[in-house]
């Protein structure tokens, strides 16, 4: 057994290091934070550079969303409350996929409901297409008519970027019946502390 001990130790380390995160590590594969859109608060165009130095949560939705978006944003606001003062280092980017109905004033009033750390972003069609392509996010707006309702579809995931803008985590969904709010809070704390453990799979992915 003795010669096997280092091997077993390494294996144990690998399995425990496999996931230091509660959410899914996407480090090294997903592109860094990059976008341009109109900030609902100021009406000016902002880019990823304006959010350097903060942990960024990126989420696609629309203000007329009946359930998924408000639930997700509410759960994020609960997480930020749990973070306490540290929440000042976090910004939540809510990007509308329905810029036709979500004008700047509508979006500004909507994100203000969830807290001061929420930023409403209104991209134009090309800015939105670039953002969705970059992060593999699906969205569609069907204006309806002829008896069909106006329907909007969008992805459920929330991407998390670190202070340098590097993509770090994917939160699968905060709109489920059992969201892992303590887990998300712990992950954000970890990122705010600047810890960089990433698990063997992220390490592997960076070498492929």
């Amino acid at each position, binding site marked *: 057994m003795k010669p096997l001990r280092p091997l077993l130790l390494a294996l144990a380390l690998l399995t425990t290091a496999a996931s230091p995160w509660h959410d*899914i590590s*996407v480090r*090294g*594969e*997903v*592109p860094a934070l990059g976008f341009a859109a109109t900030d609902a608060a100021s009406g000016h165009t902002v880019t990823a550079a304006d959010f350097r130095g903060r942990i960024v949560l990126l989420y696609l939705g629309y203000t007329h969303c009946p359930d998924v978006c408000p639930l997700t944003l509410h759960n994020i606001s609960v997480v930020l409350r749990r973070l306490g003062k540290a929440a000042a280092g976090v910004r939540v980017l809510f990007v509308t996929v329905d810029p036709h109905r979500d004008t700047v004033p509508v979006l500004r009033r909507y994100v203000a409901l969830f807290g001061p750390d929420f930023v409403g972003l209104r991209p134009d*069609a*090309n800015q*939105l*297409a*670039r953002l969705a*392509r970059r*992060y*593999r*996010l*699906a*969205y*569609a707006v069907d204006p309806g008519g002829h008896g069909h309702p106006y329907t909007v*579809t*969008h*992805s*459920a*995931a929330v991407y998390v970027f670190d202070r340098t803008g590097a993509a770090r985590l*994917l939160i*699968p*969904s905060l709109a489920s019946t059992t969201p892992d709010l303590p887990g998300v809070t712990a992950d954000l704390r970890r990122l705010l502390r600047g810890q960089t453990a990433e698990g063997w*799979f992220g390490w592997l*992915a960076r070498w*492929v």
Partner: protein
Amino acid sequence: MSPARRLPPAEWAVPAALAAVGAALDWATTTRPAAMPVWLPFDFSWFAWAGTVLPLWWYFRGIARMAPARRPAPWRRAVFALGMGLIWAVLQTRYLYLAEHEFFLSRIMHVVLHHLGPFLVALGLAGQPIRAAMPAPLRRLVESRQVRAALAPLMQPFVAAFLFVGLVALWLWPPVHFASMIGHRLFWVMNWSMVLDGLLFWCQVLDPRPAPPARAGYGARAAMAVGVIFPQIAIGAFIVFSRHDLYPYYNYCGRFFPDISPLYDQLVGGMVVWIPPAMMSIVALLIVLSHLRAAEDAAPRPLDPRAARMAALSARWTGR
């Protein structure tokens, strides 16, 4: 430079025109992605552009330079162009977006990248014309001993079949599938490994020539075509009969058809892994057998008058 040694216009005008079209597409997909029609690139890739238009250009130029009797038949040229076009279409047009957001559409993409596209390209008998028309340094590289030595073990029939099925299994292994769908580099590696392996496999199986100069005999090639059916059926059936969602990536990043449930999407995707590849293998088997028959007919045989009479009689129902 004397006028006699000046490059003919086609030598530089066509590649320059292809590069200009590529640059225009690159610019348009970067700056105006929302305005792109569905048949133009969704996410332009220079590698995909060059990898499609250059072989097509070399192929038809090489054919023009070949003696008419040795040129691939017109139907072979058509299926070659179709195969290249299909590979480019699933990798570059708006179909790519669909394949990123629906499991069964991503499986159709891989059937095109790994089976249908390379299969049609292999039927084009492109090796000779492309080598004849590609730039000399590239031709020397392709024909170099090192490249041949590197490819030889991968073309050993058992290894080739193992690699063919192994890649299907690797990219469908749930954690790898997640990483390769969410990540840009791994996504690229996944798709191009499927194309290159498909070309390596089908060019060998569908080679009409007998064992030398081909690497493996007709029997081994028929066995390759049939052998890959069973593991693919097993993988497809495993996915079809899974009761839980193996590939949550599509839930996270959104489905193109939100009305199709994840399990139904997975079931249809599993069927795409299961059925079309098996059908293609059967078509490949028939083609290998017809090549075998053509080679036997071409081989000189001692004439036995009684056997010849028998053959003439049997020709009524065999058609030979």
